[in-house]
């Protein structure tokens, strides 16, 4: 016979105090529900949305591909919404609505998450309004060249209808926007990307290049992010400045790229008419002053 020692680890003890834990989850669900709306696009009951400011709702870009767009608040009111901006790369969209009363959600910081941190998701999975799901962080998000590492992977059960809804930490602060399910894991846009998306001007200047992020190590230095130019747009700013396919952009206005979004962010903040681009060509670093074009709205390329 095996003699079994009783289970005595701390988390099990805490979970055993279920009434307190249930109260905590109930409170978290109530607060998140007050900031979460149902987003409907066309005939499709698309997903969820998070109120970030009075009258402004964030959801996934893929949720609002149809029209007209409506949001439905937790108390059942349905109001028209307008897609103010979308970023299909990050799968985010910003909606303007007349519904001003839902409470904006407190935004947290995904860098405080570690694998194992408790997270909760709120949304409308399979039409269940305001459903809460509990889980943990499976893998943290970080900046890097591989697309997969830039998302929060959460071991939490999500379903269609969670898209666009909040992923929150144990304190109820939003750390991500749930975007998809892959192999049973919930995948969320980190809140830092949401913040960048919210501050970016609607009409973003552009260089006219198509790029893909790669990992680079310039002159034996630290690993960084480079943006390999795959193509330049005819008569675009980059082409006029002499940027060619095969160049690897490594910095802008004196700042080396550490993340794939850094060029986009630098462009968003650019006020001067030109931007000094640092790039690697034929193994040597050079600088090029590129004019910054004011672009077509909704353009994807940086």
């Amino acid at each position, binding site marked *: 016979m095996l003699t*079994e020692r009783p289970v005595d680890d701390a*988390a099990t003890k*805490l979970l055993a105090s279920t009434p307190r834990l249930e109260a905590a989850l109930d*409170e978290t669900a109530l607060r998140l529900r007050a900031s979460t709306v149902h987003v409907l696009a066309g005939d499709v009951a698309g997903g969820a949305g998070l109120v970030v400011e009075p009258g402004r709702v964030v959801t996934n870009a893929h949720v609002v591909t149809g029209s007209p767009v409506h949001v439905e608040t937790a108390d059942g009111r349905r109001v028209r919404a307008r897609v103010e901006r979308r970023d299909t790369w990050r799968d985010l969209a910003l909606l303007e609505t007349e519904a001003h009363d839902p409470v904006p959600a407190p935004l947290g910081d995904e860098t405080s998450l570690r694998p*194992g941190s408790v997270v909760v998701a709120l949304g409308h999975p399979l039409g269940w309004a305001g459903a809460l799901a509990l889980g943990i962080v499976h893998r943290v998000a970080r900046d890097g060249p591989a697309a997969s590492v830039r998302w929060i992977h959460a071991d939490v059960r999500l379903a269609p209808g969670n898209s666009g809804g909040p992923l929150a930490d144990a304190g109820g602060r939003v750390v991500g926007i749930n975007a998809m399910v892959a192999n049973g*894991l919930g995948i969320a846009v980190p809140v830092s990307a949401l913040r960048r998306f919210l501050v970016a001007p609607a009409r973003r200047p552009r260089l006219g290049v198509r790029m893909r992020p790669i990992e680079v190590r310039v002159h034996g230095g630290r690993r960084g992010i480079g943006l390999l130019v795959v193509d330049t747009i005819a008569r675009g700013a980059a082409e006029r400045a002499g940027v060619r396919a095969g160049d690897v952009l490594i910095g802008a206005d004196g700042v080396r790229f550490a993340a794939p979004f850094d060029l986009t962010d630098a462009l968003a903040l650019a006020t001067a008419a030109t931007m000094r681009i640092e790039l690697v060509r034929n193994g040597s670093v050079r600088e090029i002053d590129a004019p910054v074009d004011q672009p077509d709205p909704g353009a994807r390329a940086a």
Partner: protein
Amino acid sequence: MDAMETSGAGGVLAAVSDELSGAVQRAGASVVAIHARRRIPSSGVHWRAGVIVTAHHTLERDADIRVTLHDGRSVTAQLAGRDAGTDLAVLRAPLDDVPVAQQSAAALAVGRIVLALGRPWEGDVTASLGVISALGGEYRTWHGGRIDRLVRLDISIQDGFSGGPLVDARGEVLGINTSGLARRGAVTVPATTVDRVTTTLLEKGRVARGYLGVGLQPVRLTEALRRATARETSIGLLVTHVEGDGPAERAGVLLGDIVVGVNGRAVRDLRDVAAQLGPESIGQRVPFDVLRGGRAASIEIEVLERSGGEEE
């Protein structure tokens, strides 16, 4: 409304969160990435000083195995041995600054909160949460390995699951996870089995298993055949292949014989046979009860040792 983190209720959730992420961080330092297959690496655990345990089925090669440590360093590991039976493999590597996994002293129990850890990508440790969903006694795997307890998990299998540790909510190790021992669902090889197999693999490089040189397939016995055997059984194992000059052929086993017992025990599937072919069977004359031409017969087969990584 108060900020949630200051309220008592929210504090419970935050405490659970800190407890779980702390457990992952402590245990994660002993978890390594094993690069011995295409695409996604598997995981391994620093089980004893300089010794890594991983899942046998994730090693597609025996040499040129690279291991990524928790701090991002990369070292080369040597295969010390592998055992298809328990789906475990043991590597030696220089792991000076890597902590050895702390084994849990607590008992396995259904409902226990557990975490499956992995390091499938360079750098990042991954964690999945669940509970032990079922426990059973000692069993034989489909490759004939002996495992001390059946441990089934309510945890979804993600990249890097196999070879990673199952840890309790303190971050102490309960066993090694694998998707290679069950067609569906996740199984953990308990730490006692890992210890036993590791010791054998470090000493001998393999876990010896008996070899018969036959192919067997379960068949339903007709009423007449059932009467011919003295056993209460309706299933036998039809000999579908006899290896040339193998132990079975030398003992006179013929195609079409139906095996109904080994060592005096009824056999209903290949696992029952494998259970009689452990290390102790090698070199022994093992009695087989067979049905041949509708009559019961007994044949003694001198069991040899199975070589290499052959499967059944």
